[in-house]
């Protein structure tokens, strides 16, 4: 039986499996799957692992997640207040850094793996590894050095410090975030994560000008990747566009996969990547909430038609909103399996 890992490895190597790999990122849906409130569901790693395994089995896509919610990283650094919602993802409700003095006092744990805040993620990864390790890629979400301060102090305050604040304070915070990034990456790899989503909102020209990217964001990306190696890393910019920086990032870091924004042109991305890495074509999952079955099929066909020729292509989603009907998730996935099959004409 061909597994999700077989499909992913084939795509990375520019070879053909039965079909292209399909990544479907269902996170909050796990609570409904297990009939729990989000707060109860996210309180235990075994719940999240069970939710991930059940949903992958139910829909047949190719990946599972160790990510609970993005704010988990802030919890590893001391955040103790999370706002839960019944109809959406949990959010950081109390920032670790409230003023610049908190930056000086911010302590990075020596061993993230041993941190109590990591224990449930470690348990989730243990179960996933035992159940599907080596057969289905286990994904982890790791915020880049430059993006992490937004989780610790809010995007507004981080922008203020980054562009208008004292450079010494900014650099001190970035240095600590880099230290955390390196340790966190090690913890996830040690715990069995194979696919490491490197999330950097500042790696997008939707967020910063190209001049700022080149002068400030890129050096931190290079430093991050040099410190941990590019194995398994996927470049992602929280849904923002980054076609304009792909070539530079590829050359400077050797990152082997790019998770393109739904707002970017997939044909253009594929041309820029030019067979040097895996291109991940991503559907606009906000639209999935309202699209008809025909609209979903048309969009999946369009995306795969643009990205699949020449291989080294993966079909994926962003973080799927809870409001997407189950029938629409199935329609999207069935279309992806159908149009992404190498047995079709384009094979």
């Amino acid at each position, binding site marked *: 039986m061909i597994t999700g890992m077989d499909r992913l490895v084939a795509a990375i190597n520019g070879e053909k499996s039965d079909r292209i790999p399909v990544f479907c990122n269902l996170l909050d849906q796990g609570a409904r799957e297990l009939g729990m409130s989000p707060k109860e569901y996210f309180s235990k790693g075994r719940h999240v692992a069970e939710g991930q395994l059940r949903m992958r089995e139910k829909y047949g896509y190719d990946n599972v997640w160790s990510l609970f919610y993005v704010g988990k990283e802030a919890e590893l650094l001391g955040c103790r207040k999370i*706002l839960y*919602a019944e*109809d*959406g*993802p949990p*959010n*950081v*409700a109390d920032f670790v850094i409230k003023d610049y003095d908190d930056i000086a006092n911010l302590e990075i744990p020596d061993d993230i793996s041993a941190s109590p805040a990591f224990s449930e993620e470690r348990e989730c990864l243990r179960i996933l590894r035992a159940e599907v390790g080596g057969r289905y890629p286990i994904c982890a979400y790791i915020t880049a050095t430059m993006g992490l301060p937004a989780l610790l102090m*809010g*995007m*507004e305050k981080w*922008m203020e410090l980054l*562009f*208008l604040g004292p450079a010494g304070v900014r650099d001190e915070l970035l240095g600590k975030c880099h230290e955390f990034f390196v340790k966190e990456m090690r913890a996830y790899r040690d715990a069995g994560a194979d696919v490491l989503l490197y999330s950097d909102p500042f790696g*997008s*020209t*939707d*967020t*910063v*000008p190209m*001049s*700022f990217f080149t002068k400030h964001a890129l050096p931190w990306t290079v430093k991050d990747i040099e410190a941990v190696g590019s194995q398994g890393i996927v470049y992602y910019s929280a*849904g923002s566009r980054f076609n304009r920086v792909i070539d530079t990032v590829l050359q400077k870091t050797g990152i082997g996969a790019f998770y393109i924004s*739904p*707002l970017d042109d997939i044909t253009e991305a594929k041309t820029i990547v030019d067979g040097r890495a895996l291109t991940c074509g991503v559907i*606009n999952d*906000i*639209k999935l*909430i*309202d699209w008809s079955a025909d609209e979903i099929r048309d969009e999946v066909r369009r995306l795969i038609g643009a990205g699949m020729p020449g291989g080294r292509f993966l079909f994926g989603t962003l973080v799927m*909103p*809870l*409001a997407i009907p189950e029938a629409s998730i199935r329609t999207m996935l069935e279309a992806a399996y159908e149009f992404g099959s190498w047995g079709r004409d384009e094979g």
Partner: protein
Amino acid sequence: MTDEITIEETIKGYNEAIFDTDRDRALEVVHEALASGMTPEDIVFKVVLPAMDQMIRAISETLDANLAQQYITAQIADSVVTEMIPKFKQAPHVAGHVVIGSAEGDLHSLGKRIVIGCLRARMIEVTDLGVNVSPETFVDEALAHDASVIGISAMMAHTARGPNGSLGVRRILKERGLEDRIKIVVGGAPYRFDDELYKTVQADAWAEDGVTAGGVIARLTEGVRT
């Protein structure tokens, strides 16, 4: 050097600084212009506000403007206008009042801050209701401040579409017969991914980004007043 040339040079220097996200340089340009005799009124109306409009054009025509530039534009515009207004020969006409906040359950604040900076620069009074704002608070505060526009920021699908965001505000405006008096403008990431979403949530208008939102709200404010 004539005044006309000074204005052109000031505009050029200010715009370059904005696009390079260099606040210190932008403020330097403004202060040099003031020292050389340019009036505070010209600095606001011929330099700062046109720079915001230019950014809106850049966004709509070339998609070549980004969050950082918008943030810097808004912050600088706000601070320059705040500094210049006391120097005006006549107090400027207040163009309206807006209440703004992030939808209930939403703790994101950056987009809102950009919009606030742009609105203040346009002489529109703004009451910032903060984050995680209930629909009732939006409407009560709009009435308390005689605001003609409620701005609702939402960065997540569920806070944009849920019953306690724009839909909740619309429900209350209807119940209280306030729909002619108060308009709803929405913005935030989900709206960028679905440009028809503002209709689904029964808003009167939306904007793709904070700087454009300043312009949209300013026009809507004018429309309600007249």
